[in-house]
């Protein structure tokens, strides 16, 4: 993390509005990108990012410079995304395929199916996938964001691979490239 960023964060923490706006401005894209990978569709990602921005406003004071700011942000976006889906789980099922199909682009649909499948595997798999495969974080970095051991990240990814291979039949041509 650079000195400048530290300084900007400190300014924002002390209530400097411009510094805060700059901070959001600089990191919006990164937050959105990650949210998009986790959510798999644009509208949800936009909402999650907006929630995350609000949350940054409220909890920036809690950032202690112990971790990297981006790590902290990943965690925050992730938490917002979880909250977001929990808050609307009653109609999640109807939302997913609809947004996916509307767009019609193939990778999008396939990615949806993968994300959905991974989601069914239990807690932590989807975010691990989004962080490591989607964002290209190392296992150690992902572990830091998720507050789990590095070995857990590796194990989760292994499980995901196993599961996806097993589900070749379910996800069309996906198995071909595996």
């Amino acid at each position, binding site marked *: 993390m650079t000195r400048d960023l530290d300084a900007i964060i400190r300014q924002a923490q002390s209530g400097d509005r411009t510094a805060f706006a700059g901070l959001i401005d600089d990191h919006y894209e990164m937050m959105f990108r990650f949210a998009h990978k986790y959510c798999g569709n644009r509208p949800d990602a936009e909402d999650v990012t907006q929630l995350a*921005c609000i949350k940054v406003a409220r909890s920036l004071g809690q950032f202690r410079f112990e971790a990297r700011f981006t790590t902290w942000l990943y965690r925050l976006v992730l938490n917002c995304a979880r909250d977001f889906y929990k*808050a609307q789980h009653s109609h999640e099922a109807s939302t997913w395929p609809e947004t996916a199909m509307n767009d019609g682009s193939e990778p999008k649909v396939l990615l949806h199916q*993968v994300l959905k499948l991974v989601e069914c595997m239990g807690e932590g798999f989807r975010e691990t996938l989004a962080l490591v495969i989607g964002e290209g974080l190392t296992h150690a970095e992902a572990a830091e964001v998720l507050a789990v051991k590095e070995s857990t990240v590796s194990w989760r990814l292994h499980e995901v691979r196993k599961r996806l291979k097993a589900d070749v039949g379910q996800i069309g041509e996906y198995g071909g490239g595996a």
Partner: protein
Amino acid sequence: MSDRLKQWFAEQDQTPDAQAKSRALDVALNAFDEYHSGDVPKTDKVVTINSEQKKASIDQGLVTSDRPTSDNQPVGRRLMDATLSKIPTTASQRWLYSGLASAAMLVITVSLVMNIGPQVVDDALEGQPSPEQRLAMPDQADHDALAIEADAVTVRAARLDDRQAPELHSPAASRELLRASEERKVAALQQTQELQAIRVPKPVPSLANVHSAGGFSAELADALPQVPGYSEQGRDRFEHAESNPVKRVSQSPVSTFSIDVDTASYSFVRRQLNHGRLPQKDAVRLEEMVNYFPYDYPLPAHPGQPFSTTTTVLDSPWKAGNKLIHIGIKGYQLSAATQPRSNLVLLLDVSGSMNSPDKLPLVKQSMSMLLSRLQPEDTVSIVVYAGAAGIVLEPTQVQDRQTILSALNKLQAGGSTAGGEGIQLAYQLAENHFVKDGVNRIILATDGDFNVGIHNPEQLQGFVERKRQSGIYLSVLGFGQGNYHDQLMQALAQNGNGVAAYIDTVSEAQKVLVDEATSSLFPIASDVKIQVEFNPDSVSEYRLLGYETRMLAEEDFNNDAVDAGDIGAGHTVTALYEITPIGSDSGVYSASRYTQTDPPGANADEYGFLQLRYKLPGESKSRLISQPIQRDQRTEGTLKREADFATAVAGFAQLLQGGKYTGDWGYEDALKMALANRGDDVFGYRSELVQLMRKAEVANDL
């Protein structure tokens, strides 16, 4: 396989939407301000996964409860009791309200998604255990969870239309069903908005785009004019301008301004009055109201001079003793034979916000009307912009009318508004097909909501200003209301050497694009500036009526680099000064004890000296017209009638602005004066004004 997955991840379009970004930034800044102003108790709690999970389990509890299932617990009653009974501290009251608000919003949103009517919502509210349970223990974690929930709901409410729009398209759904569900949606959305007002003091920007989902087509909007999902209100933006003050001739004898041929203000005022309410004061620009009407001023005496200037002196109707100096300018009319070739680029806003019967459909209609006034060899091209800008129609000759019309009819509204990008593209197209010795003009039709790309007014203005040098004019046609950005429209048209008009009805489109097509399209003189020097021997005070946004510095008059307004073929421009002659006690200033009053000089029979500067199209050096304003320059007949009518309009505009200088003179007097001076009124514009005056009188009494 990871590679393949990686590729899929990478192939997603992950460029953030600028609109969503600015929305998020706004909301975050609000939260930031709220946090730092101490509205939200500060907490030392470190956000960890664990605390989040704790919160999440609370969320789960709340959400389960919002399922609209029947519940035997008599919670509703207890909730009511809690509301009515005395609550010990204000702090807990706030928990109660925010709890209620967020719970109710959740219920409403969920019911919306499931298309459940309001009565079910009420039932669901009855069986709401969670918020009330929370009230019992309003601790910190709880408050946080509530706040986050409310935010989530806010965001989701804003998206409801996105979600529902595709359903509306489903072929299975019958028209009846559509209507019913739309109505429910409207009712529920209103509730959501009300609730939202409790939680967020300012309208959340994202709400603004509820209607811009682009879900239903313009045709559907036509079919269902009564249910416009969400309509924006009170977000019209106008620049505030103080009325020109009364000035002492002894201190500042010279008054300089640029002419203004815009008419947007009048149409906007008309729209408001037709809805039975007085317009916002800032929406009233006197000169635009006066110049809305064509006046029967004498035509230019010889063709070498593109326009005629006449001055008339009248008695001020609203202040005995004061005089009005009326300056009328009329441009020469082009005959069809001399009409120059034109290269028109129609730049049309097809963003989601244009999805309303008075916007895109009216734009289409207006543009097809315009075609009727063009020569067969003129070319028209169409550029549209929404989330991105694109060329819909390459330059096409007007004789190929059908191609142009079908391109127009295919347009549909949807998406955000990248107005800046659209303007750039339109200029590019106009430059590529530049017609030398012809008229190259971009006609921008929009509701003014530029929210993507260059949307900083100054930046846009700068761009338009630079492009003006290349000989391409920009005219702006405003449509719709609720979110009309007048200021930006004015700025664009003024800097693009164009006309700004506001089109609210088909007949207004007819006026601007057909009846006055020549003046809207073909400039005959540009950078027209007026300077009046008052004679201190005969005038003690003066005041320019209107033109507040067009004032120039005295030295700018002779500076040809300073931009000013243009006059189109057949245009009439009117300016009025109210003066207090020397010796009259009708002025606002008391007499100065020490200023020496010289014996009247040689020119005491003149009130002042009128000077006009203009450039012929394409020329960069200005020409000068000057003439004295004679004290006894009274006229009878047509000119007097026209001047009186202009005075009535100016008086009416002043009344709408608050009537700072009009004394006891009221709407009734304006009405009488306008009625008496209607003249031929071929197009009925003046009769319409009389009706508007009546409406203003009624609205004023309310």
